[in-house]
């Protein structure tokens, strides 16, 4: 009886998760993979093969955009880590118990506003006739309004702002578990600040760092609105090209091939990142 009840509760608890994974992740991926190996040979006639992937590899525009997207995503991830770590450290270790919740909330509030609105916020601030440029002119710091929008720098700032919370949260939760005695011991044994950071804090925080980096990298590489709204005339983003294939060119086959390529490539970057830093998913993300 109790064994049956246990089994039943396991099934009941597990079913939503299994359905979610199956219906929203696995089945669509299989569908996309299937569409991506269909070649269009004429009106309503298809054959099977890898032409869509060959087209993707042989056309430099797509290749370069994917590499560019990956490179900028890595940059955004690194910046989010560098900026987010001190914030996470402050929240987890220095802030008083009471202000901790308030600080966390302050990090969270920007996420209550949609991506679109946040991007427009940046546009209002940064455009040539925007708040910052006009204020500087008024104060006499610059004589001509300057354009701060429509370049890669703006895209990176906007993206870091969007994803940094996903870096801070895992870092805070990892750092909170760290015993302050470890730090004291480090200093007592004559370690400098840098040594203590390198030998004690960084290794301890590694699960948080890896989790945060994977989440921010994947979110950035897959983001759509921010690069398009803030980017300039040269700022192609790979998700934009996937959208173009699907929507403006009605080319679902090629769009699917792009989607699969993005997934494979970003997974490869994550794998390579783990290898290079000597980490593995099992010892970081899944570690308790």
């Amino acid at each position, binding site marked *: 009886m109790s064994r049956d009840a246990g089994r039943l509760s396991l099934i009941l608890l597990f079913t939503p998760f299994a359905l979610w994974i199956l219906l929203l992740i696995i089945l669509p991926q299989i569908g996309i993979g299937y569409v991506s190996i269909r070649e269009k040979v004429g*009106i309503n006639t298809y054959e099977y093969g890898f032409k869509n992937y060959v087209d993707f590899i042989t056309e430099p525009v797509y290749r*370069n955009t994917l590499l560019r997207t990956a490179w900028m995503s890595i940059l955004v991830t690194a910046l989010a880590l560098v900026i987010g770590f001190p914030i996470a450290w402050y929240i987890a270790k220095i802030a008083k118990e009471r202000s901790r919740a308030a600080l966390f909330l302050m990090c969270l509030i920007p996420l209550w506003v949609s991506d679109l609105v946040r991007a427009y916020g940046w546009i209002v601030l940064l455009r040539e006739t925007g708040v910052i440029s006009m204020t500087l002119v008024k104060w006499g710091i610059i004589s001509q309004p300057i354009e701060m929008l429509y370049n890669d720098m703006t895209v990176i700032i906007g993206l870091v702002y969007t994803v940094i919370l996903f870096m801070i949260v895992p870092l805070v939760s990892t750092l909170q578990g760290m015993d302050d005695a470890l730090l004291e011991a480090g200093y007592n044994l004559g370690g400098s600040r840098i040594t203590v950071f390198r030998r004690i804090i960084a290794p301890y925080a590694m699960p948080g760092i890896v989790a945060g980096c994977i989440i921010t990298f994947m979110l950035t590489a897959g983001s759509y609105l921010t690069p398009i709204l803030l980017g300039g005339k*040269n700022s*192609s983003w790979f998700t934009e090209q996937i959208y173009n294939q699907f929507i403006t060119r009605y080319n679902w086959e090629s769009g699917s091939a792009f989607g699969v390529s993005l997934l494979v490539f970003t997974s490869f970057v994550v794998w390579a990142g783990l290898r290079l830093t000597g980490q593995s998913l099992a010892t970081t993300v899944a570690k308790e």
Partner: protein
Amino acid sequence: MKPTFRALLAGTAMVLAGGTANAETLRLLTWGGYAPEDVIAAFEAEYPDIDVEVTLSNNEEMIAKLRATGGTGFDLAQPSHDRVYAAQLEYNIYKPLDLSQINTDAMTPNLLEGVKANTTIEGEVYSVPHQWGTSGVMANMKEAPEVAGWNDLCDEQYAGRTSMRLRRTILLGTAYGMGMDPFALYADPEGYQDMLDQVTEKLIACKSVIKTYWSGGDDLSALMLSGEVVVSETWDSTAFKLYGENPDIVFVPPETGALAWIDTFTIPRGGEADDAAYKWINFVLRPEITKMMSASTGAIAAVPNGIDLMPDDKKAAISAAFDQEDLDNLKFFANIPPGIEDMEGLALERIKAAN
């Protein structure tokens, strides 16, 4: 327990069934501004048993949505006249119109004939015209009084002060500006690719001149009204709207001819409320409704005297922009043959990615 549950189910089913039986729903798939509140209110007042449900979209997304569902989910769509033929041929997402149910006498004869010719497949007509307008150039006459055509978008003297939308219209306009005729090349894919290559080269060289690519009417309005941009590719309706706020900003029909589009009425294959759809079509073509519609869309109704039925401020903007010669010189978008969009798409991506 069980009877209660069953009663609940039955009750829910009755509510659901009753909901659909009482009021028919007309699901419109259309452009922003093409189903203004006051028109919907007037329509629902006349036909109290029809509920109007609006989904806003654009040409590409309309086709993508209908393709994804096999033409179901909507009862009336409004793609542009050049986007119906190939989409119908490839994806079979529309159904033929019953012209006897449409008051075609209310429509401008040459627009009606043009759209019918463009959207007839195996003797069946798939679309009739609703509103039309043009794409061309808009200029702030104080800053750029000499603007006359597509080529001025890439003129060095306006460096950092011009804008365009990176879509197929600018490819076609630039081709005309360079002295080519893209629509004549539709039948000759190699010639078309050759033309696209030349246009691509020109638009890549042009990137140092333009400030940014705009992506929507609001975006463009902000750029023009703030004075950040003085010359831009535009839809005429956006230019007419801006003329009301700043009379220095006028629409300039390019000397090679403004590119004209006609948005149509087209019924999706899986549409479930054809009667309501025909009622809507005939309703919005009435002169008094046309006026409300044009005030909202900024485009011209495909009815005789369509321009006279525009609100006064828009009428002034149109007469400031077009004379009869410009109207005679309009270049109507030709049907896009299958495959052309792929070639154009690659050209656009090359331009966007180039440095």
